[in-house]
């Protein structure tokens, strides 16, 4: 009897430590050149798609092995990077800052895009965020998302109280949020991005009462590329190739609009005409420049979304030339 118990404990512990062991072994990176990137859909990620389709990283580093991973949302990407399963993820600045605040060893490598972000309502009598009643519901992806932070910024500007509208929030992914808005039930507003933003505005009775830049009070980068310290420090060649490739992708989009539309229409399953309209939207811009980090950080720290604030941009941004 006793022997059995001891044996089962030993077996249990063995599996436990094997698990722990696996992850330690996994940390010892092979010398092989490789990069693992989270792929996401949406116009804001267009240069990533171009980089993938045109095999631009391979162009700079032919022997590299690239793994494209599809993950559902920002939280999943962050968790995968934390677990050492991803080297590069693309996300908005606030979720990045939350991870940085929690001690994740990552920094922003580059900007990717600026995008229209809009608060669409389905009621004529709502003309600004002032007109929400306690019965209204505002759908957005999740607390701590860029949409949530932007709404908080707007609330702070208007009432000096960033959480004023928090009681109205409903967490919904973009497609569900759009459905809920169009269903005209209790959800009366949706804070979203293209293509959902454009699709919603095409429906009668829908109008936009707030956009991202207005809420932020300045221009900001919507999506940034984030890489782990591991990639930056241990694989400088890969890191460099990745950045060059992304830069080339942005340039490519600028210079070859026709081929760009071809590639993206195919990848996103959107009509070419429609896609062109989206890409030509004045607020839709692609650039590696990073804007707005400190403003977000400042605001988020003041309002307890994060506990510490970067003293300067270098704390959260990889320096391209310090290798």
């Amino acid at each position, binding site marked *: 009897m006793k022997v059995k118990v001891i044996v089962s404990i030993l077996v249990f512990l063995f599996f436990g430590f094997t698990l722990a062991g696996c992850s330690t072994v996994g940390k010892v990176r092979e010398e092989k050149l490789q990069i693992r990137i989270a792929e996401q859909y949406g116009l804001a990620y267009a240069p990533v798609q171009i980089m993938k389709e045109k095999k631009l990283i391979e162009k700079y580093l032919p022997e590299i092995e690239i793994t494209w991973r599809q993950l559902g949302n920002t939280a999943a990407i962050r968790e995968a990077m934390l677990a050492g399963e991803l080297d590069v993820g693309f996300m908005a600045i606030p979720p990045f800052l939350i991870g940085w605040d929690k*001690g994740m060893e990552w920094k922003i490598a580059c900007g990717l895009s600026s995008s229209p972000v809009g608060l669409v309502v389905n009621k004529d009598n709502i003309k600004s965020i002032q007109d929400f009643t306690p019965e209204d519901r505002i759908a957005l992806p999740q*607390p*701590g998302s860029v949409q949530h932070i932007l709404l908080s910024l707007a609330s702070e500007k208007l009432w000096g109280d960033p959480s004023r509208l928090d009681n109205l*929030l409903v967490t919904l992914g973009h497609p*569900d949020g759009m459905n809920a808005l169009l269903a005209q039930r*209790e959800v009366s507003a949706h804070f979203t991005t293209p293509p959902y933003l454009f699709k919603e505005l095409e429906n009668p009775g829908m109008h936009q009462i707030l956009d991202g830049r207005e809420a932020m009070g300045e221009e900001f980068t919507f999506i940034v590329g984030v890489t782990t310290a591991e990639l930056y420090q241990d694989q400088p060649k890969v890191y460099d190739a990745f950045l060059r490739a992304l830069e080339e992708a942005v340039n490519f989009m600028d210079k070859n609009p026709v081929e760009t539309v071809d590639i993206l229409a195919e990848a996103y399953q959107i009509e070419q005409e429609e896609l062109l309209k989206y890409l030509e939207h004045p607020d839709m811009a692609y650039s590696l420049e990073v804007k707005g980090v400190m403003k977000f950080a400042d605001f988020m720290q003041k309002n307890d979304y994060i506990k510490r604030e970067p003293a300067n941009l270098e704390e959260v941004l990889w320096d391209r030339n310090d290798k």
Partner: protein
Amino acid sequence: MTNKDSSRNKIKTRLFWITIILITWEIMAKSGAFPEAIFPSLLDIARALGDSVVSGEILLQTGFSLVLILEGFLISLLAAILMSSLAVSNKVFNGLVDTLTAIAHPLPGIALLPLIIIWFGTGTLSIIVIIVHSVIWPMILNIMTGFRAISPVYKEAGLNFGLNHFRIIKDIMIPASLPYVLSGMRIGWARAWRALISAEMIFGAVGLKGGLGWYIFKQRVFMDTPGMFAGLFVIVLIGIIVEDYVFAAFEERTVKKWGMI
């Protein structure tokens, strides 16, 4: 007596293994093999749990979830009994219930979520709809199996005493199928929890008022891993309490006392 001994033994075994698991956990957390954000130490989890309890947040959200789940569960139980009773009373209705069950039972509630949002919105009503959907079909299946398994002698004795159809169902078929109803309730309870937590994690909460699933989701998006484990701990705790104290006690006082299982 033996019953008490065996339940004491069960508790002992549980406590023993829980201790072992916790020790292993702590060793692994302290070994540094994983980042703290993946594998927080027990102290951090306990602290997160303590903080949430003190601030009342986790209690409120647990209460919120429990109220929803109880509502959904009771609605499902009554509706399932009603539908099963109608099904055994009427051939046409039997066909309808049978078909509905065959169609709806394999559908996970989460798969219906987009539809439910369009039809019922994103409020508590939708969560209750998902819970009811998750619970009612296995419940009906169990109750119908129970009804079919009833010895005809009970029904005939009832008929002989002059019982009408309604009293046959109420006084004989329902108590006689109680072991099946009970196992339907167990399955239903587990499915209701899953449905609730997943629904809350997907369309979260209205405002700050959400349930446990929402609590866990919120800890996730703000990367508070110890907080996430605190939420999971509460779910496990409730699961054990309901199984060992609610269902087991109910079973002890009914079907076990009556020698039906």
